[in-house]
């Protein structure tokens, strides 16, 4: 008997091994060889913003881990998009890793075949850490990253949900409850508007193109779909008209004057000055709103999901990804970097700084990570929005034209034009552009 006694040490070793096995999920799974591409030099092109900052701040850790040198540059979004497209068209891009705005570029990049397929890399245990699995990304993220053949052409990096910011102080002063539906929101905004005092119930993007990201929240909640099964654009149907009527009412009756020219910057200025009680915009604005140097509403901001419409409750979702050009000569090394960019640690840092929201649920739902987020109410609105997320723009090539044309129609309704007529006109103008783009 004594011979068969399991020693304390053997037991411990055995448990540790079993634990390790259960962690990796697969027995005898190979380790990621992080150092395999040591000495490689990667070029990264980033859109300017908190995501890029987060990468550049910690990229030394990646170099220490892998021995791969990383050169990165941040360019303002508009220019970055242009530069990428021009370089990718040339067939010899100067970068190995590219930052993509899914809601604008997904279809364009797919159709042109500019991105390398990451699926084989993700299946290779010597390249992919065991915790990086497809199912960890949210549905919206996978929808953005995969093409119609199911290939992963990028890794989803940061998601942008639209949420409702509201000024608790103004709500209390007027005795108004936080709206649960869009109708309640309009009614609340009416009560909160006090033109004499110069405070208004609602503020949001009115500027052509930019306004589409706000409008689609209403459109989706009124049951709208962008495209039918044949790929025809549907933004002149009854849902679109109803959504536009609400948009028109909000931005003409209960919003500050001049809102037709507002982008997020002007809207945020009005909200942070305490001049507007509600604002629907991207999730990333908590840091400036809670910054005493830039905001008069610090500690008074409420965060919640976009109110429900008659046909459902959705948060219009946009997002960024990180991909590798098909023409890159350092794809494996670039993949290691992409993987590190969406890693748990980097994602946690991004979330805790308020600079973005990772697409990976293992990060969002991690209690430790959550503890590090300063504004709990904001985090809750993020988690809740994730459950009702829906893509905020049609996945077509001419997204910019769509935003410009339909956006102009919607802005026109703010100076009194009829929603149905304007949307019809915009659709007639956009349809041939869409057809041309898919034909080519």
């Amino acid at each position, binding site marked *: 008997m004594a011979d068969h006694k399991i020693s304390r040490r053997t037991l411990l070793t055995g448990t540790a091994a079993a634990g390790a096995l259960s962690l990796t999920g697969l027995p005898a799974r190979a380790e990621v060889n992080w150092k395999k591409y040591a000495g490689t030099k990667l070029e990264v092109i980033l859109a300017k913003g908190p995501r890029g900052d987060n990468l550049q701040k910690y990229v030394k850790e990646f170099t220490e881990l892998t021995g791969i040198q990383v050169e990165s540059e941040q360019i303002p979004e508009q220019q970055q998009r242009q530069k990428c*497209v021009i370089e990718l068209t040339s067939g010899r891009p100067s970068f190995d890793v590219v930052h993509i705005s899914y809601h604008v570029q997904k279809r364009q990049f797919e159709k042109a075949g500019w991105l390398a397929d990451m699926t084989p890399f993700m299946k290779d245990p010597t390249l992919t850490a065991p915790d990086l699995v497809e199912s960890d990304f949210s549905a919206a993220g996978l929808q953005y990253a995969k093409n119609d053949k199911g290939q992963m052409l990028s890794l989803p990096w940061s998601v942008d949900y639209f949420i409702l910011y509201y000024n608790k102080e103004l709500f209390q002063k007027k005795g108004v409850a936080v709206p649960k539906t869009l109708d309640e929101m309009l009614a609340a905004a009416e009560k909160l508007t006090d033109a004499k005092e110069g405070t208004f119930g609602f503020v949001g993007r009115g*500027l052509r193109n930019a306004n589409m990201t706000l409008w689609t929240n209403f459109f989706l909640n009124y049951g709208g779909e962008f495209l039918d099964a044949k790929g025809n654009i549907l933004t002149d149907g009854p849902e679109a008209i109803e959504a536009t009527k609400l948009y028109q009412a909000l931005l003409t009756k209960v919003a500050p004057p*001049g809102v037709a020219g507002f982008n997020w910057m002007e809207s945020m200025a009005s909200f942070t000055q305490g001049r507007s009680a509600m604002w629907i915009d991207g999730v990333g604005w908590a840091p400036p709103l809670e910054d005493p140097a830039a905001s008069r509403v610090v500690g008074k901001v409420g965060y919640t999901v976009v109110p429900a419409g008659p046909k459902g409750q959705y948060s219009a979702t946009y997002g960024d990804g990180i991909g590798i050009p098909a023409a890159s000569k350092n794809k494996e090394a670039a993949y290691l970097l992409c993987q590190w960019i969406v890693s748990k640690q980097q994602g946690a840092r991004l979330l805790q700084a308020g600079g973005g929201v990772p697409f990976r649920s293992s990060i969002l739902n991690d209690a430790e990570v959550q503890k590090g987020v300063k504004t709990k109410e904001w985090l809750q609105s993020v988690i809740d929005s994730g459950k009702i997320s829906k893509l905020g723009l049609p996945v077509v090539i001419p997204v910019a*034209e769509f935003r410009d044309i339909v956006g102009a129609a919607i802005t026109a309704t703010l100076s009194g034009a009829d929603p149905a007529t304007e949307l019809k006109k915009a659709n007639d103008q956009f349809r041939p552009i869409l057809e041309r783009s898919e034909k080519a």
Partner: protein
Amino acid sequence: MSTLIQSTPAAAQSDAAPEKELRPPSYWPFVVPALVVVLAIIIFPWVFTIWMSLNEWKVGSATTFVGFSNYLRLTSDPRFIEAIGHTLVYTVLSVLLPLVFGTFAAVVFHQKFAGRGFLRGVFIMPMMATPVAIALVWTMMFHPQLGVLNYLLSLVGIPPQLWVFHPATVIPSLVLVETWQWTPLVMLIVLGGLAAIPTEPYESAQIDGASLWQVFRFITLPLIMPFLFIAGMIRMIDAVKSFDIIFAITQGGPGSASETINLYLYSVAFIYYDLGYGSAIAVVFFLLIVLLAAVMLYARQRMLWTEIASDA
């Protein structure tokens, strides 16, 4: 100087070589660099633009020759037609207003008074600033709720205006910025003109008892006309291709109320990546500028004739 003189005999010697008749003109190697530069950076891009405008040329997809269909598309593109209108209104206003104010300022600064040099310096400062920086400052000044302009209006009891945030007032507001920035340029040119006017006509006008307005209308204005013309020409070229201020302040909005041809061209070529159609717009835009310049040259020519006629 001495080297030049020394080299002359050497050159003369080579002239005396037997193959003198077959030798190409000696100046042509000196023309080549200029010719290459002109071909490469002026002629080639133009020919290429025209070629692109005849193709369906979208970034990321194949190009196909489509003849004049891009141009046909222009005729039924409401955004393009509106953009022509916006460009013309914007150009006319931002030529006329700086001319009027600049002339007035020049007449004022032509008088002798204490601190004139300093004030002239202050007055031309807007011209020295970077347009995009100016645009950002003005954007905040235009803000209907928080901007300083509405605050100033409220001091004199005028209700707040929407400035660049309303389709009806956006172009005049942009012209305001343009006028603020470029009036000093007109002033400088006209000031130069004023300095060249002899004093005798003024003295005789004074003796004849002409009023200030008469002196300006019948002496100053005709004499500075050539200078005004130059200033107008420079302003027109600048205004018609104006991009930075409009782009930074409104990006062509609200809606497309301040979208000029230049802004639309930028959107089509670099945001929609429709290079063929964008090139067609560029060609039409170029023709429009040539036309405007021709009209101005014609006007200048006529003015010269009337001057000659009145001299005779």
